């Protein structure tokens, strides 16, 4: 498909600029993106509660990542840095706190023998989203990174921007708050 807004010269200029300013080649980026895009997109969606905002922030996250002038020690370091950018972007984007639960959670119930099971699972996820909605953004971040991503306390502390020493206590509080909200709503 031809781009009608950019001339060929501008295209070449953009590619030159990418080579000059981005910290990785397009090939390397493609590999990294395939590994990380979905987890980051889901993380952003859970933190913002809005798919459209999550889409915008996903593009912004990768743009900032590509322009970052950072030397990465390992793939984990690279991935953690990406999530840190995503976390900071969500925190900067607090104008709309936590919006509606994504419709996909309740929309795709299959009409089959497993419908009851699927419905139960969808209801559980809906309950979880509602409960998460009542937590602070930082608590949502910590819980997601710890229990959906399986990150260590050090990694979470780096991404969320808190001291590692206080991470255990903060996670404990966030966990209890989530469970309390779900218990209160009769969701567990």
């Amino acid at each position, binding site marked *: 498909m031809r781009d009608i807004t950019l001339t060929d010269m501008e295209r070449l200029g953009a590619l030159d600029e*990418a080579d000059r300013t*981005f910290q990785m080649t397009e090939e390397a980026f493609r590999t990294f993106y395939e590994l990380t895009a979905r987890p980051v*997109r*889901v993380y952003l969606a859970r933190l913002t509660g809005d798919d459209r905002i999550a889409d915008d922030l996903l593009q912004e996250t990768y743009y900032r990542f*590509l322009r970052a002038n950072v030397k990465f020690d390992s793939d984990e370091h690279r991935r953690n840095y990406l999530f840190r950018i995503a976390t900071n972007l969500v925190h900067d984007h607090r104008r709309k706190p936590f919006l509606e639960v994504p419709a996909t959670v309740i929309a795709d119930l299959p009409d089959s023998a497993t419908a009851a099971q699927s419905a139960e699972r969808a209801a559980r996820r809906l309950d979880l989203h509602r409960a998460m909605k009542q937590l602070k953004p930082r608590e949502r971040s910590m819980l997601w990174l710890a229990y959906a*991503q399986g990150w260590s306390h050090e990694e979470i502390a780096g991404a969320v921007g808190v001291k590692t020493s206080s991470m255990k206590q903060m996670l*404990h509080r966030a966990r209890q708050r989530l469970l309390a909200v779900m218990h209160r709503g009769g969701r567990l």
Partner: protein
Amino acid sequence: MTHLRQGDGGQAACDCPNETAVVNAVLSGSWPHGCDEALVAHAQHCLTCSEVASVSILLREDSEHSRIEAHVPAAGQVWWRAAVRARLESTHAAARPMTWMHGITAAIVAGVVLAALTAIFPVLPSAFNTAWTFARELLPNPEIATAIGDGLRLSLFVGLGAAVLMLLAPLALYFVLRED
């Protein structure tokens, strides 16, 4: 795993060394039937581990389904958009010194205009008086001479004002619209 700590009263509510093992078991999908039985038995008695297991199960399930449902743009698309944006930002950054140059030029022009006005201004009244006296001598009627003199004075001020406006208006317009 043989030395699992039991969740007893002496243990801090948020502190259990088996927490990580529980999370790993849940996230790997081996919880509760595919992992160490001692770990599962421990979690039944340990407040921290049972909490961790409950939360991990919920979040893992949500995470897995969300990843399947999530629609992400193609890597090439993200790369291309980022490249175009980098180009635009670079162009904008390159144009910034020019903007500074324009600002400095505008300041110099304004200074020259003001200096010229300041230099001319003391001379103006005497020039007007000379012109008025000359006109009065030429014209027999003093009322007509006065009227012509006043008219000349006024039109000179209007002309000067218009000149300044014509000089400054494009500059002002440039600074207002330069972001567009």
